[in-house]
C-alpha cells in the first residue's frame, strides 16, 4: 500500500525501459517499492532496468512484454502486470512514447498512424484496462508521462506533440472521472529531457536530464497535484507560450 508520503510498495511501469521510467523506478525502490513490474518491448533493456531496480532495493521484479504499435497488446500487458504483482497495485506509470522523425513521417500514412497509436491509442487502451482494475481496488495512483509539447503543438513535431496533446487532455477528464474512487491520476509534463529518445536533437531552453525529471515525479507523488511540470519553470513558460500570437509562435520555432 502507498504510505502517507505517496511512497508506493508495488509498481507497474508500462514502458519500463525508457530513461525517465528507469530513473523513477530506481528512486521508488530506494524508498518503499519492493515489487516492480517492468513492461515493454526491448527485453535486454528491461532486464537492465530490473537489475537496477533490484540494486536499488526491489525484492521482486517481473518482466512483461508488449508492442505499443499493437493496441490489442495493451489489455494483456495490464492483465499480466497485475497478475504478477498479485496484490493491490499502488502505482502504474505509463511511459510509452515514440518521438519519430516528423519530416519523414508526415507524408507517410503508415508512419503517421504508428505515431498516433504508440503515443495515444495504446496508452488510452491501457488506461481503460487499468481503470476498472484500480477502481475495484479502491486505491492506487496512475502517472501518465505527457509532455509540454502537447500544450501547444508546433510544426516541427506535430505528430508526436499532437498525440501527446490528445492523451494529456483525455487524462484531465479521466482524472475527474476517478474522483471518489480512491484512485488518482497525475499528468507529468516534462520539458526537453536528455534521453536516448532525444539524442541528436537540439535541446530546447531549460533542458534537464532524466534524473531531474524522476526527482520531480517522485516528489509530486506525495501531493494532490493533477499536473506535475518538470522542471517547474515549464509551468510559467508555457502559460506564456500557449498564448503567443501565431506568427510569433512560428517565428520562435523556426530554428528548431
Amino acid at each position, binding site marked *: *500500500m502507498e504510505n*502517507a508520503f*505517496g511512497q508506493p510498495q508495488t509498481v507497474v511501469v508500462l514502458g519500463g525501459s525508457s530513461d525517465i521510467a528507469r530513473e523513477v523506478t530506481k528512486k521508488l525502490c530506494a524508498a*518503499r517499492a519492493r515489487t516492480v513490474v517492468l513492461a515493454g518491448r526491448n527485453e535486454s533493456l528491461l532486464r537492465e532496468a530490473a537489475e537496477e531496480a533490484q540494486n536499488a532495493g526491489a525484492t521482486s521484479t517481473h518482466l512483461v512484454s508488449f508492442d505499443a504499435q499493437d493496441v490489442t497488446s495493451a489489455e494483456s500487458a495490464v492483465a499480466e502486470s497485475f497478475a504478477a504483482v498479485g496484490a493491490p497495485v499502488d502505482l502504474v506509470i505509463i511511459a510509452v512514447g515514440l518521438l519519430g522523425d516528423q519530416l519523414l513521417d508526415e507524408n507517410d500514412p503508415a508512419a503517421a498512424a504508428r505515431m498516433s497509436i504508440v503515443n495515444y491509442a495504446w496508452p488510452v487502451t491501457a488506461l481503460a484496462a487499468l481503470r476498472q482494475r484500480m477502481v475495484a481496488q*479502491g486505491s492506487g495512483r496512475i502517472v501518465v508521462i505527457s509532455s509540454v509539447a502537447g500544450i501547444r503543438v508546433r510544426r516541427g513535431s506535430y505528430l508526436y506533440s499532437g498525440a501527446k496533446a490528445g492523451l494529456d487532455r483525455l487524462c484531465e477528464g479521466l482524472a475527474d472521472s476517478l474522483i471518489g474512487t*480512491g484512485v488518482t491520476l497525475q499528468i507529468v509534463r516534462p520539458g526537453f529531457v536528455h534521453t536516448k529518445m532525444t539524442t541528436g536533437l537540439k535541446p530546447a531552453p531549460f533542458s534537464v536530464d532524466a534524473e531531474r525529471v524522476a526527482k520531480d515525479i517522485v516528489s509530486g507523488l506525495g501531493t494532490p497535484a493533477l499536473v506535475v511540470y518538470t522542471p517547474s519553470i515549464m509551468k510559467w513558460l508555457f502559460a506564456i507560450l500557449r498564448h503567443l500570437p501565431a506568427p510569433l509562435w512560428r517565428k520562435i520555432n523556426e530554428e528548431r
Partner: protein
Amino acid sequence: MGRALRPRHPRVSREKLYGWGRTAPSVANVLDPTSDEVFSLLCTSTHVLSRGLGRSYGDAAQLAGGLVLRNSAMTVMDEIASDGSVWVDAGVTIDDLIRVGLPQGWFVPVTPGTRQVSVGGAIAADVHGKNHHVDGSFGHHVLSLILATPTGTITCSPTERAELFWATVGGMGLTGVVLRAQIQLLAVTSDKVVVDTTRFANLEAVMHEMQTGDHRYRYSVAWVDCMTTGAAMGRAILTRGDHAENGGERQSPRDAKIGVPFSAPSGLLNGLSIRAFNELWFRMAPKQRQGEEQSIGAFFHPLDGVRDWNRLYGRRGFVQYQFAVPDAASETVVEAIKLLAESGVPSFLAVLKRFGEGTPGPLSFPMPGWTLALDLPVGPTALPGVLDQLDTLILEAGGRVYLAKDARLDPATFRAMYPRFEEMLHLKHQIDPNTVITSDLARRLELIRK
C-alpha cells in the same frame, strides 16, 4: 437490560475512508451491521475489516476495495454493576461511558486524548492514557470480550482463551470483529482532577522529575517543544494529577463548541506558525502551580473542544510518530528530539510519557520506559527520510513505533520492532484460515500475506 444509544444506518455504501491524519485514504464498501449480522458477513466476504470512529491516524481502519464494518450500530450499554463492571457493545464510545458512568460515580479506567473512540477501537489499538505508568492500557481493564471470527463467535478473557484475548487487545482489528466487551470502570467521587503543573527549561530536567516523581500521581504527561535547539532543547511543561477526593457535581463533559468546517490551506501550519504556537504555549504555562482543579474534559481531552481539528493541517494531512523505548535507552529520547529539532522539520508540541508494562499480546506496544508522540505536517521533503532515521534510532534502542499512529513504517522495520508478529500469524491461521480479515495497514506492513 441495556439500550441502544443511537439509531443505525442501514445501507451499504462505497465510501472513501481516511485515518485521522488524512494522509492515504482508500475506498471500500462500508456497512453498519448489527452484532447478529457480523458473523454471516465474515463468512460471505473475501476481505473484511471492522472500523470504529476512525481515530487511528494512519491506515489501520481502512481496507481498500474490501468490506468495512463500522461498529456505529452496535450501541447497547448494559447497567453498570455494583462492582463497576459493565457490558457494552463495541460501538459504545469512551464519551458514552463517561456520560453514563460519571453521574453514577464511575469513570473510564483509561482514556486516550479524545473521548471519540469506540470500545472496539480502544481494544484493537489497546489505547493508553496519562495513567499508563500506574494502570496500564485499556486492555488491562477489559474483563471479557465477544469476538466474531470467520470460524465462529468466541468469548475470550485473560483466563479463557487468553492467547486470543491478548492477540485481540492491540491486534489492530486483525483477529476478528469485537462485538461486545465487559469493562471494569474506576470509582470516582468527583468530576474534577487536581492538577500540578511545572515548567522545565530543558529535557533532562523534566525527564529526571518524571522518573523520580511520577509514581506519586495517577496521571502524568509532559508537553515538549521539539523545535528549539541549544540549551533550551526539549523545554517542557509537566502536568500531573489525580481525581479529586470529593466535590463537584460529576457532570458529563460538554460537546465541542467550535469546529473546522473544511480543510485549511496546506502550509498554514508551517515552521513559523508552529514555532510561534509552541512559544506561546510554553510562555502561557505557569512556572509552578499546585492543586489546581480542572474538569475531566479540560484535563483529559483538550482537543475534543475543537471538532475536526485534524483539518487544520490542510489537504495533505499530517502524520503522528509515536515510539516507546525502554528505560535503559532514555538517551534515545534526547537523541530523537535532537534529530528532529536539528532537521528543521516542523513539529507541534510533542507528548512525553512514562510507560509501565505492556500486555502479554504479540503486538503490544508499551514497554516500561518512555513514550514520545510527535505531530508532523506532511509537506517538508526531508520528513520521510527523517522518520526513517528515527526508525533506525528507535530500533537500535530496542524500541518500537505505535501501529495505531503509524502511516509510513516499512515491513522489514515492523518485523524487527515487533518480533513476536509470527505468533499473531499463527493464531490468525487458526481462527481466520482464509485471511478474510485484513487492512490497508496489514497489507502495507505485510503483516498479512494474501
